[in-house]
């Protein structure tokens, strides 16, 4: 009993003397990271929560326009920038709530592996998407859009919707790390565009819009240029991870349709000595905006359009030499006897694509 009493006393003494490693008040919760190149090295913009003072009125608090601010910190490395922010705020930096990482296109091709190394050691959830952006990342992170501030949730929503609709490939930290581990493999990373050049005829659209329209092909050693959303759709189809997509087909008129329930099977077979990859795409479509032309076979047009998109993706992959169609992995599994061209995984590999769509 005496021992128990002594134990409780010691615990209480430690507790009341403030023997705790961290206090919740002394944390900066980061929602989004933006990384730009600066003279010193990197300029990192942290979208952080600052709702403590403003939410005196009670009620639920969440990351909204009024409760987030963007803080900037510089450093030769991301660690140094984090340390700098720690010194600025006098608080611990908590990256565990990060929703998105935005990297400026200007940062450079070789920095991605360094970033990935940093993310691996930080508290960041490894399922967070990494995206590039046009212009400065700090502008994207702190942008004021028509629909409000570019909060991390909004930015994440934009990226995830693009991925969901197959307009970009998923770019989680884990996936990118696995994809760019070996030579010849490439990962398309979505590019967040804050502004888009509008066509002259359509001036009604705001010039400050946000969206994912292109992706940047990243490899172990650098980048291989951009791909547009059509190629991204084709890539998703050939990779076999597209679930649904929206498509506009042109026959005698124009029709918009939505394709979902996509089932894609990739099989590898040998045609003599060269491997052949057979991709079978099945799905169902529903017409959202009927064709103005008469007698258009919407299903047939859609199938042809998908084939066309697959062709674009194949061509881009072959040209760039970056295997973003994940052919290398497939061949490693099914075509072990085949000696792959280390420069270009698609070299000597035949593709056969079958598309079959049915209407709801």
């Amino acid at each position, binding site marked *: 009993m005496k021992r128990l009493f002594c134990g409780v006393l010691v615990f209480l003494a430690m507790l009341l003397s403030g023997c705790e*490693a*961290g206090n919740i008040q002394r944390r900066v919760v980061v929602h989004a990271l933006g990384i730009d190149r600066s003279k010193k090295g990197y300029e990192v913009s942290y979208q952080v929560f600052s709702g403590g003072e403003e939410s005196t009125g009670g009620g639920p608090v969440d990351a909204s326009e009024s409760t987030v601010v963007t803080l900037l910190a510089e450093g030769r490395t991301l660690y140094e920038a984090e340390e700098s922010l720690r010194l600025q705020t006098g608080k611990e930096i908590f990256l*565990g*709530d990060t929703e998105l990482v935005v990297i400026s296109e200007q940062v450079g091709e070789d920095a991605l592996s360094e970033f990935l190394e940093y993310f*691996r050691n930080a508290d960041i*959830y*490894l*399922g967070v998407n990494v995206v590039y952006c046009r212009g400065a990342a700090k502008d994207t992170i702190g942008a004021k859009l028509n629909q409000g501030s570019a909060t991390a949730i909004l930015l994440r929503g934009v990226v995830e919707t693009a991925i969901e609709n197959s307009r970009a490939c998923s770019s989680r930290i*884990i996936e990118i*790390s*696995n994809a760019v*581990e070996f030579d010849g493999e490439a990962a398309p990373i979505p590019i967040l565009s804050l502004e888009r050049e509008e066509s002259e005829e359509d001036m009604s659209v705001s010039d400050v819009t946000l969206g994912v329209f292109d992706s940047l092909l990243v490899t172990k050693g650098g980048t291989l240029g951009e791909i547009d959303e059509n190629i991204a759709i084709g890539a998703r189809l050939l990779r076999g991870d597209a679930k649904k997509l929206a498509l506009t087909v042109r026959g005698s008129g124009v029709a918009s349709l939505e394709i979902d329930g996509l089932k894609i099977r990739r099989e590898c077979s040998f045609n003599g000595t060269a491997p052949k990859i057979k991709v079978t795409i099945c799905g169902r479509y529903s017409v959202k905006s009927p064709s103005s032309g008469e007698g258009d076979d919407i299903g047939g047009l859609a199938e042809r359009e998908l084939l066309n998109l697959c062709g674009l993706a194949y061509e881009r992959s072959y040209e760039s030499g970056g295997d973003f169609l*994940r052919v290398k*992995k*497939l061949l*490693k*599994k099914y075509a*072990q006897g085949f000696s792959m061209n280390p420069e270009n995984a698609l070299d000597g590999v035949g593709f056969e694509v079958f598309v079959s769509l049915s209407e709801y």
Partner: protein
Amino acid sequence: MTAEKKISAGQLMLLLLLARVMHTMMFRADGFESGLPMMLGLLCSTAVEAVAALPAVIYFEKGGADIPRELFGKNSAAFSLLYTVYFTVIAGGTVALFAEFMQQEFSKTVSPTAATVLLLIAAAYCASLGIEGLGRAGTAVFWLFAIMSVLMVTVSEGSFDWLNLRPLAQGDGETFSRYFVESLSSSWWLPMFCVLGANLKSGAKKAVGGYLVLKLVIIETLLLLVTLVLWRYIDVLGYPILALGAYAKSDFIQRFDAINMFVWAINCALAVGVYIFICTKPFSRKKLSCAIPAALAGVFALFEYKRGLRFDEPWLLGFKLGGIILLGILAPLCACIKMKVKEYISKGAEE
């Protein structure tokens, strides 16, 4: 050693399993290339373990009560001390691994020294409560794991990529042999079984068979899951413990790393508790005898941690393998032979 028969075959099976899975999940393997050679390595090592376990199983099935006593009679204490030394090192190694894990992944939560001390206090306390409590608690912890695993799989954002399961290639021989040896050197369940068999009510065959099958299924499944979902990223995560929850996310619980640590800390306390209990078997004063091995294990754990020794150092691998062969295979084999000879002599005398 006392021959109190207290736990059931199922409880012993789960205790052995928890201790084994604990080691696998704590071990930071480098160079994850492909899952298949590792899975094959585990399969082969399990087959070898099944054969190696035969002497101990036969001994206990034939009614043997206590291996050291069978071999050395009243002078068995000295031989029993070998088990004490062996499991003190194993306990220390396990605690050091956990302390290192805490330092790597939860450095702000608790210092490695504090983690070592607290863990050993909890383990020594658990050991002092006896094998019955440990055995029953083992069942509860096993179910806790099952619930946790199902929960994490349910909320996982990851998906299977079957392309990660590359078929065996020529270069996989090295991975296979490395994992085979590592897996064999982690088979200290054999000496564990030799000691705890004395506390078994009945069903040595059931305990060992169940353990081998369950171990194979669970670890192979974990390896398969990790390969399909994470692949080489397991190298980045380092600890298989975290691999399970790396992709799990829900609106209610955002991340599962700390939850995983919570569950594995319970298991670590339990597994080390069993090791300490084994260490105390030659002694009669249970409370004191729990504190001494715990303190020694603590010293060894801190030494191992501070000196940066890895649990797969060649000399440690040799020590572990040597212990398994001497205490887990040869000792029960000799006990079996002696028992048979005794039977033969007594039969001869009767005739």
